[in-house]
């Protein structure tokens, strides 16, 4: 987490500086080297996490020519022993559509999402004789939404013809499945939709910035400031393993191709025992299995170009594709412990990559003598995934490798007067490579076993000429093993364990001047963490309660943390629900804080007590509102203790640490959402919150936390126009961050520099932020491929939003650093 913080802070500011808009290093994020990744089992088409009431909706343009029941496909002539068979076909010949999504919703709200197999069909061996609402959707087609009634004898067969979406009637599906555990707040974003949101620049992972509970990061960066927590208090996982770095240069674009993503889950609080070692929130990103059908995508905008390809690569054994979900007793369920995994006969692969080209363009368009520096920021990333054929025993396995490399160098031609020794080349580089695997295996006993091992290497290099430098390398190995099972109708169990080892090596040098004076530190240390956790999901009609417990142990400190958690949900109908949660969450100090050379090995792991209560109400078919009150108490926070100037052993570079910090955050979140109906979708997210910190080393008691934002409002809407046009708009408002304004300076006569005289700690605020973004898309559908062009403009009315305060040399004058006045991005996308 340390590297994510450093990289994000420097990267965001450096990139802005390159466009000469003024900058200040923004809050950055760094990965927590002591954190343990959480693995998630191999994904099946059905949600793997225990589900309460996933709700999926889709609407289709009314089309009198279409019908839920079209001419039957060759496979749908009889029930074949199955309770329900649904086949998706297209065209006059009734061509099967493999990989189409079929969503079934039962009257009690339980639901499942299944993907059609090679023959375009799903087959349910057992299903209660009820009425179900069905949605069938496929990429490039207009979805269908209809109802069916499964007879007691089963054998129902339906064939659904989907019309190809053309430029005039293509529909954009918004499917938001709330796959919350009871009490848990989980907001799910479908990557395909998130990619087209205004301000996203085509990056789905940036869409979480539009959700309640997330404060706005400085300079539009991607620091995850969740419910008044620090960026390092939120962990980010990719398929269950912690990802070292989520964005390039702190927020420009994500390091994972949007096309690879299956879902983006944002848990701002109250999360279950699967997730640990985080005080605030979790972002859980899941990639999707590769599809057998070969396809490719090329995407390019003003910053970078990317390519994506997937398809079957090897033959293999395995049964024909079968439904991914079935119940042990014939009831519809999304519980993966009772699921039959999706089966594929072939090995499939995804390959994707991105490379920036601003380092090529900038020197060509900007005369060299107009820049006081030579700037060459560049980044690239890659992802490779291989999904093996499903074995006869139903085991699914995939392996994935991905990585990222950001670099930025410039020559210091004109050092500032107060640091005249600063010369040479400034170098900033951060990179990582990670390999991980996912294995799921259903056991005859009914347990579903999953394992996720991972290895990673990460490096951060910062050099400031010959004056100072900092190198840090991480090598990490981790693994998670989980088992799930349903015991009857009313009880689901989850047990799991995860472990991580981390080797850290860092080197720091600082030249004070003179030929022989310097400070240099080289250290290496090993840390490890392990956990065991367990939870039960107890269902009693509309009430579900989930008690769970998690225990974490750490090496070499031998500290142990214990986190009990409890959650409950009451959902008597599809119209409304209520939930509540209470739990404890520990997060260990990062490796540097625990290091005996530069930190304090006696530090305890800080912890948070999180509690909340909330609910939701659905107005009709397409509009729903959710609200939640939350409170978070933080204790044992790591703070710097003042150095004793009289202590000859006191380091002049490093302050001692202890656990005497405390904090609290509380507030309210509201999400009002209108789902896609014909042409319009949108939502309004509002957060009202307060976050404070206190420490005995800071006078004045409670003071605002540096990331506290009282009001955070995001309103966005999208509208589909004829002929393949689509337009979207987003308006944001956020209270400015607290800051400590200086009230002048005093001159250090010997050092020839001015020392600021600070005002009340965090007693002032940067002015509020507000911005309007728009996006326009135009799509063309051809016979075998699709072309899209988009224009994304951030800050349409050129609001000079203050991001920080800077001062003149004696701190008598100040001015605001502002972000980019406007950021237009033009891009095109070809899908084959």
């Amino acid at each position: 987490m340390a590297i994510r913080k450093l990289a994000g802070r420097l990267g965001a500011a450096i990139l802005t500086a390159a466009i000469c808009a003024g900058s200040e290093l923004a809050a950055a994020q760094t990965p927590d080297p002591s954190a343990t990744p959480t693995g998630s089992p191999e994904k099946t088409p059905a949600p793997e996490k225990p589900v309460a009431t996933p709700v999926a909706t889709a609407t289709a343009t009314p089309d009198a020519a279409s019908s839920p029941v079209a001419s039957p496909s060759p496979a749908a002539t009889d029930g074949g022993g199955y309770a329900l068979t649904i086949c998706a076909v297209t065209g006059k010949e009734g061509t099967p559509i493999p990989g189409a999504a079929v969503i079934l919703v039962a009257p009690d709200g339980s639901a499942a999402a299944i993907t059609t197999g090679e023959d375009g069909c799903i087959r349910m061996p057992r299903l209660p004789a009820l009425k179900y609402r069905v949605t069938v959707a496929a990429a490039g087609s207009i979805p269908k939404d209809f109802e069916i009634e499964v007879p007691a004898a089963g054998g129902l067969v339906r064939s659904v013809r989907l019309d190809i979406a053309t430029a005039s009637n293509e529909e954009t599906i918004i499917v938001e499945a709330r796959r919350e555990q009871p009490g848990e707040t989980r907001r799910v974003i479908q990557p395909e939709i998130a990619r087209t949101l205004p301000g996203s620049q085509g990056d789905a992972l940036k869409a979480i910035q539009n959700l309640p509970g997330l404060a706005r990061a400085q300079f539009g960066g991607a620091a995850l400031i969740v419910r008044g927590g620090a960026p390092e208090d939120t962990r980010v996982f990719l398929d269950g393993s912690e990802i070292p770095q989520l964005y390039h240069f702190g927020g420009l674009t994500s390091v994972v191709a949007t096309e690879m993503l299956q879902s983006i889950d944002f848990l701002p609080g109250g999360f279950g025992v699967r997730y640990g070692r985080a005080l605030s929130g979790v972002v859980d990103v899941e990639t999707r299995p590769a599809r057998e059908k070969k396809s490719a995508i090329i995407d390019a905008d003003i910053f970078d170009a990317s390519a994506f390809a997937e398809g079957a690569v090897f033959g293999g054994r395995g049964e024909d594709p079968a439904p991914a979900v079935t119940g042990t007793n014939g009831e519809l369920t999304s519980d993966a412990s009772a699921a039959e995994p999706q089966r594929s006969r072939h090995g499939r692969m995804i390959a994707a990559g991105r490379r920036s080209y601003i380092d090529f363009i900038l020197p060509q368009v900007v005369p060299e003598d107009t820049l006081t520096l030579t700037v060459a920021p560049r980044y690239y990333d890659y992802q490779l995934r291989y999904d093996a054929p499903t074995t006869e025993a139903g085991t699914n396995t995939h392996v994935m490798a991905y990585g990222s490399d950001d670099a930025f160098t410039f020559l210091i031609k004109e050092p500032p007067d107060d640091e005249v020794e600063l010369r040479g080349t400034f170098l900033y580089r951060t990179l990582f490579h990670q390999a991980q695997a996912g294995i799921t295996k259903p056991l005859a006993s009914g347990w579903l076993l999953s394992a996720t091992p991972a290895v990673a290497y990460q490096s951060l290099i910062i050099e400031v000429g010959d004056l100072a430098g900092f190198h840090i390398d991480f090598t990490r190995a981790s693994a998670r093993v989980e088992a799930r099972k349903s015991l009857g109708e009313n009880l689901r169990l989850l047990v799991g364990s995860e472990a991580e080892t981390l080797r850290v090596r860092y080197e720091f040098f600082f030249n004070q001047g003179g030929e022989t004076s310097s400070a240099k530190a080289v250290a290496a240390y090993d840390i490890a963490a392990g956990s065991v956790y367990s939870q039960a999901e107890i269902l009693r009609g509309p009430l579900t309660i989930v008690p769970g417990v998690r225990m974490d142990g750490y090496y070499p400190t031998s500290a142990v943390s214990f986190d009990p958690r409890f959650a409950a949900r009451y959902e008597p109908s599809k119209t409304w629900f209520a939930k509540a949660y209470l739990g404890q969450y520990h997060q260990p100090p990062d490796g540097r804080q625990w290091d005996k050379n530069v930190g304090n090995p006696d530090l305890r792991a800080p912890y948070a007590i999180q509690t909340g209560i909330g609910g939701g109400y659905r107005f009709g078919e397409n509009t729903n509102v959710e609200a939640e009150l939350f409170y978070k108490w933080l204790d044992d926070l790591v703070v710097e203790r003042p150095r004793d100037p009289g202590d000859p052993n006191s380091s002049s570079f490093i302050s001692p640490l202890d656990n005497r910090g405390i904090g609290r955050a509380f507030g309210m979140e509201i999400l009002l959402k209108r789902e896609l109906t014909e042409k319009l979708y949108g939502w309004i997210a509002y957060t009202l919150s307060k976050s404070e910190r206190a420490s005995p080393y800071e006078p004045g008691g409670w003071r605002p936390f540096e990331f506290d934002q009282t009001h955070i409002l995001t309103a966005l809407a999208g509208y589909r126009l004829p002929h393949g046009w689509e337009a979207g708009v987003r308006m944001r408002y956020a209270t400015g961050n607290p800051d400590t304004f200086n009230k002048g300076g005093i001159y250090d006569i010997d050092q020839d520099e001015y020392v600021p005289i600070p005002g009340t700690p965090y007693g002032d605020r940067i002015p509020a932020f507000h911005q309007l973004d728009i996006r326009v898309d135009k799509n063309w559908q051809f016979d075998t491929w699709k072309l899209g062009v988009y224009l994304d403009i951030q800050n349409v009315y050129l609001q000079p939003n203050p991001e920080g305060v800077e001062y003149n040399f004696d701190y008598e004058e100040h001015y605001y650093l502002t972000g980019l006045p406007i950021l237009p991005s033009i891009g095109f996308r070809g899908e084959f």
Partner: protein
Amino acid sequence: MRVFWKLIFITAAIAVAGCEDGTSERWLLEEVRVLGVRAEPAEAAPGQDVFLESLVVDPLGAGLRNLEIAWAVCTPDPILGQASCAEPGRTVPLGLGSAATLSVGADVLDGLTPEQALFGIDLYVVVAASAPGVPNVVEEDGEAGYKRIRVSTDPLPNQNPEVAWFNPASTPVDGRDILLQAAATIESTEDFEGPLGPDVEDLRFSWYTTGGALERGVTLGEPLASEVSWEAETGSTLFLVIRDGRGGLDWVVREVP
């Protein structure tokens, strides 16, 4: 570690050096400024008197108002550091005027080990310059600075550097760039035992002017001499302050006719 991050922030700020922020330059003297305090001796022994002389300028108010210079001894707050010397509650008056004398107590090093006493401790002196406003002419102004006075038992205490010469390379002509050149005496750079081992002083040249434009305000000695480009303006006053990085200081003033 904080110094390291300060360098990072400064370096990032360099990246926007091409972007003007519209604030004043430190080398341009437009208001009351404390440019330096010379202590003689530069490093004192217990019981010794230290003579303090200030270089304070008031370009706008020269001849219009009285510049008051007040001296005080400061005990910095251990948490807030030297910035707390700006608070009246942490200072004890020492005197008024452009110069003052600090009497170092004979017992200031009591309780220290011989090694600690050899390294010494720092006493802090604050010089605060203030000038009243003149209605419709000039506003009230002022500035404060602090200086460390090292007190030790070092048999070879630090000495002040000395400016050997400071001259424009050519006759100043309005609007034309000329080089300002200066050098310190050979004895100005001393060898010393620093906290990280043997070291040698690096001289820092700070340039100021009341008119024209300097290329930059600070240069490093190479090792005893340095120069800077100046867009000349006749009638200006040029100031040069050299520092040895250990509290030693000297200055020279040149009037440009």
